């Protein structure tokens, strides 16, 4: 088993997730770290957003993280052997107004990674672009869309529900793999 110092961002996520799962706590990787996974680390963010599913006990999370050598600073958990920091947003696990329906699982050397799908990852990034005009979010969405199979029709349906069909129409072509 790799040491925490040797772990990539997603390996660390799988490591933490697996230890929490042993205590019955299910958390799902979302946010920038999911872009890192689906872009083969072409994009890396410093934080790991592990979204809590229903009625997660904060006390259990704190105990497990402490046992793994993390210390809590406000809402973040940091570890002396890694620059990545971990956050457990309370959820719900959603992309805009809709709940995430499908969770992907991958077996990594450090544990089972539970992560949102590439399609939901693209939706998640597009939200940053739609609501705040964030070009970096759009670039990340394009990166994930070009490197993974995504359901473009589903993203279009979702964008319609979000009331962002017109914005989606302007960038739709950019999501298609060249």
């Amino acid at each position, binding site marked *: 088993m790799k040491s925490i110092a040797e772990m990539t961002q997603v390996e660390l996520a799988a490591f933490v997730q697996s230890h929490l799962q042993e205590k019955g706590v299910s958390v799902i990787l979302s946010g920038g770290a999911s872009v890192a996974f689906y872009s083969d680390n072409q994009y890396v963010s410093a934080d790991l957003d592990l979204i809590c599913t229903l009625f997660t006990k904060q006390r259990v999370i704190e105990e497990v993280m402490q046992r793994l050598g993390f210390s809590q600073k406000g809402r973040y958990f940091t570890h002396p052997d890694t620059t990545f920091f971990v956050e457990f*947003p*309370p*959820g719900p696990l959603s992309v*805009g*107004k809709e709940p995430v329906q499908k969770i992907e699982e991958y077996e990594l050397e450090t544990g089972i990674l539970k992560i949102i799908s590439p399609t939901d990852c693209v939706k998640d990034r597009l939200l940053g672009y739609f*609501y705040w005009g964030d070009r970096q979010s759009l670039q990340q969405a394009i990166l994930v869309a070009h490197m993974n199979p995504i359901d473009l029709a589903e993203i279009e349906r979702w964008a319609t529900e979000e009331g962002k069909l017109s914005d989606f129409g302007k960038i739709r072509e950019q999501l298609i793999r060249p």
Partner: protein
Amino acid sequence: MLEPILGSTNSERVLIFLTAREEGYAREIARFFETGLAPIQQQLEKLEFGGVLVSRAAGRTRLYSLNPRYPFLDELKAILNKALTFYPEDLREDLTMNRRRPRRAEKPL
């Protein structure tokens, strides 16, 4: 008014203020409701952590607003807007009728 479901008066104050004005900072909200700064800051941070609010820096001030990505935003706004109609008229007007257009620096009133 919404304290039984929101769990705190200051949570209601923060959410009502941001629903009415779309954006605000801790001191402004505390001053408006003539209450302490610390509990308002605490609620803002709690609601931001929960994904209900987002914030951005404007100079040395942190401006908060409702998170457009919050999955229950439409439903929450519906409740808050309804709650606003139950507020005393003067308070409701003060909340909604504030100046938003720009004012040139040092311009006399």
